[in-house]
C-alpha cells in the first residue's frame, strides 16, 4: 500500500493510468447543434474567469458582513437561546411540559425530528446523488445544501434525545450505545428506534466528513488569501496543509467519489429507517410497505424546499447571480416537481390500498385523516405537497424567483404537516373509543420548535460568515476555462 502512495514518486513515471487508457473511437460524425431555443445555458454566466470566481465567493466571507446580517444573527441567536432554556426547563421539570400524552405519546417531538432530518436529505442528494449522476449544476449549490444538512441533523437530534426525559440515560454508555456496563444489558437491536440512533448518528457523521472533505481545498484558498493572524491560523489548521498537488487531487477525487457513493445509499437508508419507526408497527396508517421510498422522496422534497428558501435570498443578498443562476433555480424546481409527484403517488397508493386491503381499521385511519378532527392538517398537507409543486410545470413560474421562494415555503410547511398528520392522526384514535384523545401542543412545544429554527439559522449565518458558501474549486472545475481541451482553457487549434 505504501509503495503506491501518491506522495511518493510513481515507480513508472511513463506508465499511463488504467482508467480510460484504451483509446476511444473519435466521432467522425458531424451532428448539428441544438436549435437556439433548446441550447443549454452555461453553468456560470457571463464567461467569468477563474480568478473572478475566487474573488466572488471568497469575498463573501472575507468582507465585513452586510448590515442585515447582525439583526438576523441576533434574532436567530435569541431563538436558539429560547430553545436551550426551554430544554433546560424540560430536563428539570419533566417531559410532561410537552403536550404529548396517551394516546398521542408521539407528537410534536417526533414530527419535528422527522421534519428536520428530512430537510437534511436535500443536501446529501445534491452533494452525492447529483454528483454520481454527473449533474454539474450541483457545484453552485452543494456547499450550502450540505451545511444545511448538518445543521438540520443537529436540530433533528435534539427532539428524540430530550423526549427521553432523563437524557443522561440516553447518553450513558450501554443504553443507546453498545458498551459494556454495570447493568450487563445491551441495546435492543430489534427496535427501530435503535436503528434510528445508528442511522442518524452515521448520517450526521458522514455528512460532516463529506462536507469537510469538500471544504479542504477551499479552506486552502481562504488561507492563501487571508490577512490577519487568526484567519491564517484557523484556515491553515483546517485546510491541513493542502497544496493543490495533483497527486493529492488524484486520491482526493477518488475519495470524494467514494464518499458520494457511500452517501447515496446512506441517505436512502436514513429516511427509510426513520420510516421503519412507524412502518414496522401494526398501527393503522403507519404500517404500509411503501413508507421507505415515500419517506425518502418526501425528505428530498422538503429538503429542496429548504434549499430554495435559503439560497434564493442568499444569491440576491450576495450578488451571486452569475453562479447560482436561474437555471439552478429552475432545476431545483423540477426536483421539487418530481419528488412532489412521487409523494403524491404514495399518498394515492396509501389510500388505494387502505380501500383495496379491506382492513376496516386501515380505511378508518385514512378517512379520519381526511375528514376527522385533524382534517385541516391533512388538507394543509395535500395543498402544500401535492398541489403546489405542480405550478412548476410552467417555465414562467419556475424562473420567477419570488414565486419559487413562496412555494418553497409552502413545501416546508406542507412537509411538516405531513409528519404531523402521519404521527398524530394515527395515534389520537386508538382502537377503543375510550382511548380516544385530541393532541394540543403546549407553549413549550411551540417555542421549542420555533427555537430550533433559531439554532438552524444561527449555524447557517455563522457558516456564511466564516466559510465559502459555494464550493470554489468545484465551480471552477465545471467552467470551460478549466478544461485543458477547450479553447477557453487555453487549448490551441492544431491544424
Amino acid at each position, binding site marked *: 500500500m505504501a509503495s503506491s502512495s501518491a506522495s511518493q514518486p510513481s515507480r513508472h513515471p511513463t506508465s499511463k*493510468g488504467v482508467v480510460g487508457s484504451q483509446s476511444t473511437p473519435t466521432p467522425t460524425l458531424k451532428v448539428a447543434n441544438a436549435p437556439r431555443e433548446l441550447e443549454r445555458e452555461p453553468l456560470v454566466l457571463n464567461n467569468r474567469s477563474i480568478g473572478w470566481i475566487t474573488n466572488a465567493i471568497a469575498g463573501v466571507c472575507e468582507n465585513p458582513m452586510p448590515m442585515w446580517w447582525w439583526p438576523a444573527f441576533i434574532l436567530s441567536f435569541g431563538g436558539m437561546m429560547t430553545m436551550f432554556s426551554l430544554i433546560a426547563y424540560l430536563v428539570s421539570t419533566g417531559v410532561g411540559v410537552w403536550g404529548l400524552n396517551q394516546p398521542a405519546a408521539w407528537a410534536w417531538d417526533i414530527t419535528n425530528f422527522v421534519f428536520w432530518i428530512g430537510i437534511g436529505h436535500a443536501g446529501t442528494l445534491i452533494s452525492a446523488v447529483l454528483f454520481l449522476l454527473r449533474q454539474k449544476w450541483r457545484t453552485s449549490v452543494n456547499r450550502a445544501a450540505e451545511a444545511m444538512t448538518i445543521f438540520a441533523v443537529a436540530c433533528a437530534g435534539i427532539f428524540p434525545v430530550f423526549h427521553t426525559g432523563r437524557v443522561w440515560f440516553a447518553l450513558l454508555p450501554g443504553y443507546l450505545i453498545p458498551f459494556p456496563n454495570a447493568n450487563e444489558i445491551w441495546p435492543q437491536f430489534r427496535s427501530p428506534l435503535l436503528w434510528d440512533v445508528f442511522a442518524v448518528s452515521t448520517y450526521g457523521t458522514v455528512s460532516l466528513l463529506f462536507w469537510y472533505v469538500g471544504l479542504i481545498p477551499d479552506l486552502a484558498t481562504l488561507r492563501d488569501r487571508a490577512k490577519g493572524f487568526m484567519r491564517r491560523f484557523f484556515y491553515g489548521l483546517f485546510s491541513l496543509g493542502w497544496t493543490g498537488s495533483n497527486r493529492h*487531487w*488524484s486520491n482526493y477525487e477518488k475519495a470524494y467519489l467514494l464518499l458520494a457513493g*457511500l452517501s447515496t445509499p446512506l441517505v436512502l437508508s436514513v429516511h427509510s429507517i426513520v420510516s421503519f419507526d412507524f412502518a414496522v408497527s401494526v398501527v393503522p396508517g403507519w404500517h404500509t410497505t411503501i413508507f421507505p421510498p415515500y419517506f425518502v422522496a418526501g425528505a428530498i422534497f422538503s429538503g429542496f424546499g429548504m434549499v430554495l428558501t435559503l439560497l434564493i435570498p442568499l444569491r440576491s443578498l450576495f450578488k451571486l447571480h452569475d453562479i447560482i443562476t436561474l437555471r439552478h433555480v429552475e432545476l431545483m424546481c423540477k426536483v421539487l416537481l418530481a419528488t412532489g409527484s412521487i409523494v403524491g403517488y404514495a399518498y394515492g397508493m396509501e389510500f388505494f390500498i387502505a380501500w383495496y386491503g379491506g382492513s376496516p381499521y386501515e380505511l378508518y385511519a385514512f378517512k379520519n385523516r381526511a375528514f376527522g378532527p385533524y382534517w385541516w392538517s391533512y388538507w394543509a398537507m395535500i395543498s402544500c405537497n401535492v398541489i403546489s409543486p405542480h405550478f412548476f410545470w410552467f417555465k414562467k413560474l419556475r424562473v420567477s424567483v419570488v414565486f419559487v421562494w413562496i412555494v418553497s415555503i409552502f413545501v416546508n410547511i406542507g412537509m411538516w404537516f405531513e409528519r404531523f398528520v402521519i404521527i398524530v392522526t394515527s395515534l389520537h384514535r386508538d382502537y377503543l373509543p375510550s382511548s380516544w384523545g385530541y393532541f394540543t401542543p403546549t407553549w413549550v412545544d411551540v417555542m421549542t420548535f420555533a427555537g430550533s429554527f433559531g439554532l438552524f439559522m444561527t449555524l447557517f449565518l455563522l457558516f456564511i460568515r466564516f466559510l465559502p458558501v459555494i464550493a470554489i474549486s468545484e465551480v471552477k472545475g465545471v467552467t470551460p476555462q478549466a478544461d485543458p481541451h477547450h479553447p477557453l482553457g487555453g487549448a490551441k487549434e492544431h491544424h
Partner: protein
Amino acid sequence: MSALSLKTYGMLAEFGTPADIFEAAMRCRDAGFSKWDVYTPFPIHGMDEAMGLRKSPVGWFTFCGGFTGFFSGMTMIWYMNGFDYPLVVGGKPLFTPLYAFPVSYELTILLSAFGTLFGMFFLNRLPKFYNPLFKNLRFRKATDDRYFIVIESADPKFSVEATRAFLTDSCHATAVELVED
C-alpha cells in the same frame, strides 16, 4: 549541486492556463522526472494520465472499512442480542440477519467513510502544516487561478540550470524560480 540541494526544495514553474500545464505535465512525465508534482486550484481532467499516475488505491481502504463495519455489526448484534443476553422480544428470533441488517448496514457505511477519509489522508500524508512551498508568495496563487509544476531537488535528474531551462524553454512556463527549503 549537492551543496545547493541542501538548501533548495525545488524548481517552481508557473503556468497561465490548464492547457499549458497539461502540455507541460506530459513533457515532465516524458522527461523521466520522478519527484515532481503539478499544483492546480481544481483537479484537471486527464491530468493523472498526463502525469503518468497510477489509479488511486483509496478504494481499498473503503472496502476494508466497509467489510469490517458489516461483519462487526452482525457479530456484535449476534453476541449482544442472541448470545450474551438472549431475550425474546416481539416474537422475533434471537438472532437473524434480518433485524440485524439496518444497524450493520449503517456501520458498513460509517466505517467505509472513515476508511475512505483516513485512507485519503494517509495516502496524501495529510495533515502536513509545514511545507516549503508555502513560503513562496507566488505559490499562493495555486489555490486561486495559477497552475504550477514543482520539480524537487531530490529528484536524481534535477539540476538548477538544466531544469530551469527545461521548464522555461520546453514547457513554456511563464515564470520559473527556485524554492528554498
